[in-house]
């Protein structure tokens, strides 16, 4: 049986092969070749696509270039979601590589956040960590950390340094034995239908009488349609990091081992593939 720590490494090093193609409406001085890249599931698009930008800028005139944005089959990709979440939500039933279209004009202001520099990504990432700790520890652990500790979390993610990141992140995963777990579990449940981008509410890892809450318990409370009843046909998949964990898995364990670097459990509810 795999060690729990192995799970942490497997999650960190998850990759998705992607192929970037310039949108046909973009004016170029010569033909633009597609660009291939392995994307880390746990990172953010704007943090890892500098090479993509440089590649396409070579064939474009400066006056045709505005902020780069990415799209998959007409859907603008929200850079502030972890890459793995975007893939599981929009493209998991398609053949690899993930075909992403690159744009340099007509930025969709209503749908996408601007990302003028890496500090914007850092600020977004850190605010996720802080919010997660507000839920887990009433912000006590993150507030007790020094500025350099926060920086270490960010640098670990930015530079793909598992050990550097976890040396600090393990503090955010601790809890006292009498508590038995975190105060509330930081999670977001994403769906592909409807206006609401995600569901995020308060949910404890243990019930009032000390029973361990499972993934199934969370879904029954927050998204009952995802829990198939006996005899019924399964219509929805519950996906975390590209896999379907058993619904009996304790939520506390999932939070400690399958969270993203921002300390949130990002859960995708997608239709069962029809093929």
């Amino acid at each position, binding site marked *: 049986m795999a060690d729990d720590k192995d799970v942490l490494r497997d999650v960190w090093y998850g990759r998705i092969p992607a192929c970037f193609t310039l949108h046909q409406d973009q004016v170029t001085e010569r033909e633009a070749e597609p660009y291939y890249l392995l994307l880390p599931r746990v990172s953010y698009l704007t943090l890892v696509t500098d090479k993509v930008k440089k590649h396409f800028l070579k064939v474009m005139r400066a006056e045709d270039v505005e902020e780069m944005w990415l799209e998959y089959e007409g859907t603008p990709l929200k850079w502030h979601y972890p890459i793995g979440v975007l893939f599981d939500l929009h493209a998991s039933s398609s053949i690899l590589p993930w075909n992403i279209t690159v744009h340099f004009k007509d930025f969709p202001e209503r749908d*996408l956040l601007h990302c003028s520099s890496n500090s914007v990504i850092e600020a977004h990432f850190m605010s996720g960590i802080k*919010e997660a700790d*507000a839920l887990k520890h009433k912000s006590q652990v993150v507030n007790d950390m020094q500025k350099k500790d926060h920086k270490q979390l960010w640098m670990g993610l930015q530079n793909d340094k598992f050990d550097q990141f976890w040396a600090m992140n393990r503090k955010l995963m601790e809890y006292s034995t009498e508590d038995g777990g975190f105060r509330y579990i930081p999670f977001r449940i994403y769906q592909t239908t409807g206006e*609401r981008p995600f569901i995020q509410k308060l949910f404890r890892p243990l019930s009032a009488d000390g029973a361990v809450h499972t993934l199934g318990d969370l879904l029954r409370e927050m998204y009952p349609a995802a829990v198939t009843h006996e005899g019924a046909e399964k219509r929805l998949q519950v996906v975390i990091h590209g896999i379907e964990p058993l619904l009996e898995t304790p939520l506390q364990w999932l939070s400690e081992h399958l969270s993203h670097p921002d300390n949130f459990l990002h859960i995708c509810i997608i239709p069962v593939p029809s093929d």
Partner: protein
Amino acid sequence: MKMISGLDEDSFVACCRLVLQKSEELRDGWRWEQGSEGYLRKTVLHSVSIQEAENSEREIAHKECQSSEAVLLDDEDDDNVAGANCPADPPLWVHSEFHVLFSSSYRTPVMFFRSNTLEGRALSLDAMWSFIKPKLKSSSEEDLLSTVTQQEHPLLGQTFFMLHPCKTNTFMRPVLQAAQRENR
């Protein structure tokens, strides 16, 4: 980070009801948007002086002034007449939306807002600051600038600006205390 202790979702909803009552009396335009999680909403159509705005916003104001003039003039009239009546620095008409949601993570209200020109173009944060700044003399500018960021609206999934929850406390505490006093 200090939080208003004891604010849960029910208290938030109760405070919102008070705000709505006051808003009704003052004809201030706040409404309740119902959903599984409800929130306060107010939309405002207003013109802003854009002397301090970026050039891009000035261009928008000029174009919109000219296009609205063109609509009013006859079709046969020549193009160079349109825009002749536009002032040098026309006011920019802006449609602004303000939402007050409840953050269960921070147990505090959070404000989201956005502004668009009448042609649907989103205003940048810089442009908005140029006409908000003159009104905020007491708070330190740097302090405020670091607490307003672009965010995804958690219920609508669209781009808004958000006043950071930490600062909601600073801004909202006097308001809520007054509301709670009235409630007794």
